[in-house]
């Protein structure tokens, strides 16, 4: 066990615990706040795995934007503030499918990598990642900008009733 392993085990425990609370808590707002903890722990895991830029993008986009949007949606749909018992349906099919998927993937990945040991690669700084993005992956990068524009226009059209009503008529 090296320092990186200990750090990863600790951050992974935090991420898994917070993730479990996201899907089991009876408070809608607290689920969003536990999601912040889980996403922050995953950003820490990225840092241990030397993915600097990805970690900061995770903090900016996920913790900064996505969670705020989710909390906005919680408020706008008038979710119950206190604890509510009707957030879940029957649990055993979900536990069966989720546990099966998780256990199957664990077996698959551990079988592929065993307890092998690799040296950490050179850190993914903004300079190196930018070079990879704009040399090798420039076409998907540009396609993503078109996709973001389409998602923006789609979100506006869906959420404005005066535009949406015409299409339905």
């Amino acid at each position: 066990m090296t320092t990186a392993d200990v750090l990863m085990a600790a951050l992974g425990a935090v991420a898994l615990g917070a993730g479990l609370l996201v899907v089991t808590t009876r408070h809608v707002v607290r689920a969003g706040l536990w999601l912040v903890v889980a996403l922050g722990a995953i950003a820490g895991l990225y840092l241990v795995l030397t993915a600097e830029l990805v970690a900061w993008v995770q903090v900016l986009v996920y913790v900064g934007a996505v969670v705020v949007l989710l909390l906005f949606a919680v408020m706008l749909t008038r979710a119950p503030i206190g604890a509510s018992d009707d957030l879940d349906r029957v649990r055993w099919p979900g536990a069966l499918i989720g546990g099966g998927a998780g256990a199957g993937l664990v077996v698959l990945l551990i079988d592929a990598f065993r307890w092998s040991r690799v040296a950490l690669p050179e850190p993914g700084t903004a300079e190196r990642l930018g070079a990879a993005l704009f040399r090798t992956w420039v076409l998907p990068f540009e396609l993503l900008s078109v996709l973001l524009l389409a998602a923006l226009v789609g979100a506006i059209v869906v959420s404005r009733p005066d535009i949406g009503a015409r299409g339905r008529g």
Partner: protein
Amino acid sequence: MHPALPFTIAALLFGIGVYGVVVRRNAVLMLMAVELMLNAVNLVFVTADAAIRAAVPHSGQSFTLFVIVLAAAEIGVGLALILQLYRLRRSVVIDELPLGEPDDR
């Protein structure tokens, strides 16, 4: 660094996300579980980038950035749909949705 450790974390996180998607009845909570699944996939990408010496350096981390952008687009459109649903039905409980035209229109 043992790659089995983060791979195990990612697989378990994906299982938790699947459980949330199947069990949760509130549409916003279901989207949160989808975010957990997407993060598990991102963790697999970053770990594979560190564990496997690929011909193109840092391709796993580049794909993680792409998935983060896709998740942002997905959450924008998804929340717009949920808000519109709430405006029409006054409820975001996904297993009580009557199909067809709403009555008040």
